[in-house]
């Protein structure tokens, strides 16, 4: 985010934000990495349970059936993971993975709002709304 206001324009001197842009970026970068590692760990744990239980069953992906609701909706996935199902854990890990960039955009909304950058607060809110609609809203019709 550093130095994006170099171009001389009338509105190029907003109040400096409390922390340096670059530092915020570094923190967010580490958060993204942490989210990815956490999701991968959950997926890996689920994989171990899944393979131990189903190793010798045939793999069937040739025809598309669609997943059962246990693996499609957020409540279904959480319930399945809580029951200790391997595939429920994997799906929960994937859910965390999808949530990671969404959290990143949510942080950007806060950063722009603290900076009193109204235009970019609105822009990031639009992006956040699209992401939340996709994750939560699109599933409501089922």
């Amino acid at each position, binding site marked *: *985010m550093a*130095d*994006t206001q170099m*171009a001389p*324009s009338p*509105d*190029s001197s907003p109040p400096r934000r409390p922390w340096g842009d*670059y530092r915020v*970026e*570094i923190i*967010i*970068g*580490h958060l*993204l*990495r942490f*989210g*990815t590692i956490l*999701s*991968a760990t959950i*997926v*890996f744990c*689920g*994989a171990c349970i*899944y*393979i131990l239980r189903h*190793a*010798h*069953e*045939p*793999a069937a*992906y*040739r*025809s*598309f059936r*669609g997943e059962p609701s246990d*693996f*499609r*909706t957020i409540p279904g996935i959480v319930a399945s993971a809580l029951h200790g199902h391997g*595939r*429920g854990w*994997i*799906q929960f890990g*994937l859910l965390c*993975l*999808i949530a*990671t*960039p969404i959290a*990143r955009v949510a942080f950007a909304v806060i950063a722009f709002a603290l900076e009193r950058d109204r*235009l*970019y607060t609105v*822009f*990031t809110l*639009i992006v956040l709304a*699209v*992401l939340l*609609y*996709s*994750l939560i809203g*699109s599933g409501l019709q*089922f």
Partner: protein
Amino acid sequence: MTILTFTVAVALVAFAAGLLGSLTGLGGGVVLVPLLTFFFHVDIRYAIGASLVSVIATSSGAAAAYVKEGFSNIRIGMFLEIATTMGALLGAYLSSWIPTATIAIIFGAMLLYSAYTSRRPRPPELRNLPPDPLATRLRLNGSFPDSDGKRTYNVQHVPAGFSLMFVAGTLSGLLGIGSGALKVLAMDQAMRIPFKVSTTTSNFMIGVTAAASAGVYLSRGYIDPGLAMPVMLGVLGGSLFGSGILVKAETKSLRLIFSMVILVLGLQMLYNGIWGKI
């Protein structure tokens, strides 16, 4: 094939794709879907769902490294993400309407285009461009550290870049790929953003774009845990391993080999799509 052998084989292929994708900078996601459909006989919709998940993983996993370089422009990223996420949502919805054979044809065309752009030299960087009124209003112009001090840049052709990013988002949502080739077209060619800035900014955008369609894919039942698991772990492992090792010398021939692979897979995808074999 039993689940054990299937999982191990898919994870190995995904690892190789992630490794080659990160070493060559061409991205691993683009070869995953054809490999899964041709060699593992996976339905293309499951393959696209799994590939999408791996795209999010590699983008977020690499973010920390990219941020340290300090070239990314968050305003350009956020502004263009309005286009890519809306496109991704459209693409995800289209994917359940468009017949799989048509998706395969679009995929094949995209692969051929990626192979073509990977062989073509990058567009020359034009320096000292005049400021564009719209880009200035949106405060998209920026600067980054260069060998000779600080280099400022002025973003050009905002509407063209924004529209192209919408198309890139739609293709990303429809095909489950990062669509880096189209992003280069939009950011480097149309908007004239310096290479260093566009690469790091687009990496950060890819994960957000993929997340926008992943939600729809998840709720439609396209993301299968048994398939997405080895794909995601394999690609992530491969790309992290690839960014950790320094084999700069052989990148040129690797790029050639990898773009040939993309070309062959693209032709195969077109053939299968046209003859309805998918």
